[in-house]
């Protein structure tokens, strides 16, 4: 399994809006976590995809993207932000389960 860690500093998440901006910039693919999520999933899972599958790219690799929230000790005290984060990750994973049969994102608090 190929794992890549992308970090968001916990103290940079001021509110739901800054969380959206931080997520949006995380994969260098604007809109990846919202309006362009299907396109992003297809892009990073060529060959695995059950819907737009291209046989030439069949692989044993299973890419997993880790989103690490560093310095996350204060996040538990901000339920709206935490709920928004969980909601976004869950939406992407639900979509990737539908398209490739497994989740793509792993949320890590450190």
């Amino acid at each position: 399994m190929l794992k890549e860690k992308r970090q968001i500093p916990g103290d940079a998440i001021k509110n739901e809006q800054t969380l959206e901006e931080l997520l949006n910039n995380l994969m260098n693919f604007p809109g990846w976590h919202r309006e362009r999520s299907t396109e992003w999933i297809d892009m990073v899972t060529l060959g695995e995809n059950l819907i737009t599958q291209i046989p030439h790219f069949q692989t044993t690799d299973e890419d997993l993207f880790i989103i690490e929230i560093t310095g996350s000790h204060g996040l538990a005290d901000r339920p709206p932000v935490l709920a928004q984060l969980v909601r976004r990750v869950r939406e992407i994973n639900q979509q990737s389960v539908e398209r490739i049969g497994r989740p793509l994102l792993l949320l890590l608090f450190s």
Partner: protein
Amino acid sequence: MIRREFLRAAGASAIGAMALLHWPEEQVAHAAAENLSYQGTDLNNWLVAVGDGVFAAEGEAPVAQDDIATLHFGDHSELRANVHQRGIMAHNITYNQQTVPDALDYIHLCEFSFRLPYVPSTSSWEQNAQTFEASFFIWDGSNTRLDYGIALQWILNPWMNSFGKIRTWVNVGDPAQPRNVWKSIGQLNVDTNWHTIKLVFDYQFQTTAMAIDGNHCLSSFSTTPKAGTWSGETVARFGAEIISIFPGSNPNAPSHTMEVRDWRWLWIQ
């Protein structure tokens, strides 16, 4: 022990696979004298075909021969894919093909150098990439009707976790009905340096070897079924391949270029 027997014995182990990569100069000279050696500085006279790693965004015409090109400059060639920067992913296979009935009786030693003229990145629009590939296959059209070979894939899509990963083509699943997949075997930093690839293929011992920049890599003897329309002849192919980046729903997408030079293909009997 004659050289062929040594190569076969050596190929039976992982250490032996490394030995396969050390080509004795007297054997090279012999192959050349027997007219079983092909080489060049560029890929002039190689064939160019659209491969199966293709995709067209909604509303885009399917990928066609016009979407790929291979240009020759004397000291190197340039493989190009998605030359019109359409909303497609184009697959350029540039290959040298020899139709020889007893091609499976030889050990095949293949090599060339390759270079990216740019570094793919998430901020690059004019040029970006999905893969580079090198391959050697023999289509046994007159007997088993299977394609035997060895292949390498270098992942160049900068949005993928596997950016820079090297993969090799393997069989998995039921040996009677194997599936073909790419398996990661290492990493090659994505840069604009010249790199070398060596492929060794021995059908008789079902053995392969591969080296990048002189470093031995894991490789696999693979068996691939093909469409019933493939010919009834025995055809050996040595190829370089590129695939342009997946376009998503974009009506325009970057093109991809790879330079190749100094190729050699020896047949050892």
